């Protein structure tokens, strides 16, 4: 998974989202150690201080925790990860619904498009 950063929003906020995504997608599984600040900063080609700020916020939220000597780990609280996953899903759907509304679609139409497409894709 590559790091996609847009130019018009704070970088640290986008880093938080992308790390949340990696945790929810299981790229960083519960209880696993995540790479160091320096490695992550290099991977995402961002400033190490910005990456540090993002990780500190995730720690504050409880999704990550740190061991003084051995590094930073993903929480083992799977319930919390599940909640984060739901939060991310809601955000995606909100963006999608907003776009569909801008295109002039009604709720019913949107649902039928989704169910048609979902059937096609799941086959």
């Amino acid at each position, binding site marked *: 998974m590559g790091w996609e950063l847009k130019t018009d929003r704070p970088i640290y906020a986008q880093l938080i989202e992308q790390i949340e995504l990696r945790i929810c997608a299981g790229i960083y599984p519960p209880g696993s150690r995540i790479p160091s600040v320096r490695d992550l900063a290099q991977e995402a080609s*961002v400033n190490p201080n910005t990456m540090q700020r993002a990780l500190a916020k995730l720690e504050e939220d409880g999704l990550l925790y740190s061991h003084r000597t051995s590094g930073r780990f993903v929480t083992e609280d799977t319930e919390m990860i599940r909640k984060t996953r739901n939060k991310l899903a809601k955000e995606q759907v909100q963006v999608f619904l907003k776009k569909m509304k801008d295109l002039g679609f009604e709720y019913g139409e949107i649902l039928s498009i989704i169910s048609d497409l979902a059937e096609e894709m799941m086959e």
Partner: protein
Amino acid sequence: MNKLLECKNLSKYFGPVRALDNVTLTIGSGRIVGLLGPNASGKSTFMKICNDLLTPSSGEIRIAGFEPGVESKKIVSYLPERNYLNDWMKVSDIISFFDDFYADFNKEKAYDMLNKLNIQAEDRLKTLSKGTKEKVQLILVMSRDAQLYLLDEPIGGVDPAARDYILETIIRNYNENATVIISTHLISDIEKVLDDVIFIKEGQIVLHKTVDEIREETGKSVDSLFREVFRC
């Protein structure tokens, strides 16, 4: 914030021209700072004063407490905007020269970077292209374990792939005791790497903020804000 670089009312006049006009500025350690401004805004003048190549007309400047001079040069690694290397030398000669000259020079680091960028140590500088010479200069500068790196237009002449490598090198080299100041026009390439941004216009500091402050407050990238502030 500790004060690695401190200027108070710093000015430099060239006859009637105010190249730097009453600049007051503090930069701490552990920062990567973009010094951004259009041509002839005073960026190079500022860096030259930091390196004792120009003397201020008025005001004060201190680097880790020292006035620019012998002591400050021990801890400042400077990439000038032009090529100053002797053409007849081999890349390996110039590395030995730097190794001899600077106590904080790390020879292994230099050879490692040469390798990564596919530059042959036995080549003479006069046989190298303009872009390759620029890479060699940057390697020399980044191979010192300095406290302050002053890079005047470090990525202007090199290709995008080398540019990525250079930015990666800056990130990899990052440590909380050192600060890097980069002057450039190529803002979109480097803004993700910066902590702080300084806009300089006609010798005056018009903005000094963090990249995320700018994005939060304006909803714009540093690049778009620059285009707005300096619209011609």
